């Protein structure tokens, strides 16, 4: 039974992380999968969301911290919306000079913005507490739920050990539900958008931008909308991460975890397909977690094992590109049906 509890705990942790990645993959899907915008600075928008939310909801700076600003202790939902807004504004700054040019320029600029954000996080201690990052970021409804479960456990001292443990962990179950609800709402919004006339325009841009312009559509504006919307969703992903991890620092947002793995998730799942994006997130995170177990049995150091796993992800990406570029779930062909 204890093993069972251990596995359950692990599954909850796994699903929360995979769900957060699902959010990022949905954001990338609107940019790349539907509009054809090559964003390889996901980590930047992800970090921006996490830090913004932490600034808005976190505690005021304490005496031993380097930061002198922020910590407004506002509700979680304000942090979430603020995260989306800030990521969206930064996306405008990146998109304005590059969206009229060949895709390569956007790609280079997004790497640039992610790097610049990382530098700001490291250097502007007054705002971000530098390399030490934010600690004790409040989790929404933590006190209420944790308090209730503690009280229940205090009142029922004779519960079997495994039930006791499950109840003690009830906050994680709540957060999992929260992540899944946010993921599901975003999924519904994205599905509605992709199937709407707006989605028709961005899919047309992905196929042939000039021909779309010839049909009177202001393609620059649509590309900007898709870029900003995707970035806002990534910001939301960052916020969800920050409030669960409760601790963030610049190393949490390295390009590997922030950007590449999300790309592999989307491409494996099937770019252009929202279900594919979510499926890919769970599948790739599953592979990632699975290789963690496997490499424990190999005679390598921890850092070597980590490298080995990343090499595996890179190989996976190349294999998909070579043999199944459309991914597991190719985009739907008949998005439009009118009864």
């Amino acid at each position, binding site marked *: 039974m204890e093993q069972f509890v251990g596995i359950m705990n692990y599954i909850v942790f796994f699903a929360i992380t995979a769900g957060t990645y699902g959010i990022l993959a949905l954001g990338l899907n609107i940019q790349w999968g539907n509009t054809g915008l090559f964003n390889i600075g996901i980590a930047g928008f992800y970090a921006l969301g996490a830090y913004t939310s932490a600034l808005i909801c976190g505690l005021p700076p304490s005496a031993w911290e380097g930061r002198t600003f922020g910590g407004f202790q506002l509700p979680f939902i304000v942090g979430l919306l603020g995260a989306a807004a800030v990521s969206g504004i930064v996306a405008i700054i990146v998109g*304005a000079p590059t969206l009229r040019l060949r895709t390569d320029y956007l790609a280079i*600029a997004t790497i*640039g913005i992610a790097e610049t954000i990382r*530098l700001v996080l490291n250097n502007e201690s007054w705002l971000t507490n530098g390399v030490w990052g934010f600690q004790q970021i409040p989790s929404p409804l933590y006190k209420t739920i944790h308090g209730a479960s503690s009280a229940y456990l205090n009142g029922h001292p004779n519960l079997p050990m495994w039930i006791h443990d499950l109840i003690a962990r009830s906050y994680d179950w709540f957060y999992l539900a929260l992540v899944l609800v946010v993921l599901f709402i975003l999924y519904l919004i994205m599905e509605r958008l992709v199937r709407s006339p707006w989605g028709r325009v961005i899919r047309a841009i992905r196929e042939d931008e000039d021909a779309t312009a010839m049909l009177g559509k202001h393609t620059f504006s649509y590309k900007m909308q898709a870029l900003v919307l995707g970035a806002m969703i990534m910001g939301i992903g960052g916020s969800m991460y920050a409030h669960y991890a409760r601790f963030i620092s610049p190393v949490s947002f390295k390009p590997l975890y922030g950007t590449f793995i999300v790309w592999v998730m989307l491409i494996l799942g099937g770019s252009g397909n929202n279900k594919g994006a979510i499926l890919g997130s769970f599948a790739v995170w599953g592979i990632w977690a699975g290789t963690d177990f496997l490499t424990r049995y190999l005679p390598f150091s921890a850092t070597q094992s980590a490298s080995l796993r990343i090499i595996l992800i890179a190989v996976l990406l190349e294999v998909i590109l070579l043999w199944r570029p459309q991914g597991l779930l190719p985009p739907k062909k008949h998005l439009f049906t009118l009864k």
Partner: protein
Amino acid sequence: MTTLANIPQLLVYGIISGSIISLGGIGVSLTYSILGFSNFAHGDFMALGAYIALGLFTLFTGLGIPNVPFGPLSFGFGFALAFVLAIALTAIAVILIDRLLFRRLRRSGPIILMMSSIGVSLGLRNILQFFWSPQPHYYSQAIQPAVAIGILNVRIKPDEMFIIAIAIALVVLVHAFMRYTKMGKAMRAMADNATLAQVTGINTDRVIIWTWVIGAGLAATAGILAGIENKFITPQLGWQMLLSIFAGVVLGGIGNPYGAILGGMVIGISEEVSTAFISTGYKPAVAFVIMIIMLLVKPTGLLGRKD
């Protein structure tokens, strides 16, 4: 006013780092104009070269090949031999990567190639990390005194003069190659019009191989020179410079190798001189900001063709 007095010295640092950025940029530019895609693995080709040199150097030291420093430089014959061989081996490794991946994906178009290069970048960096760990490795632990060159209190180390000299020599060599050899001309021809090149009877596959030889060779050189300048190398070495390299390439005009040299110099100098005014930590951001301004003012770059 002390910061302003520092500027001549910073300019020299800028030229050193600009030399390294330019050498990296030439390869990015050639890949873009001849193969048609932005290669995000180029920085990691630099790191690969730097580590192959390290591996060979360690091997040679073990074999007892002498490395008595050349005059005031920090290295001798053993390292120089490792340097040259590393350039060749990096080129071979990159050609293998091309055969294995890029060649098969060429039909899928530039965006798939770009994506594949990101995978290569990640894979290569972690292969290096697997064998050598993320910790820094040293080419040489000796401390080299800088010498005054007698102008405005500027000091420069012999190794740094070597870096600048090598960069100049290679730029001249690449220029001569592109201008006067048949293969160099064929590379320019293919950059102009790949279909016509094929119709004319140019062996385009061989042109592609040469593009990688030059691009990867210069990348390896840049990586090793960066190692000499910093005294140490890490697997992140190239990836960390990639943004500066791309900024230089965009600034000079993407697809134009001469633009990449000019742009790389401007970026290198701007990054170093900026440290007189803002935190050293923001060097890469300086490159990014210059690039964005250039894109707003003239997206074709300083030497870019309009089309």
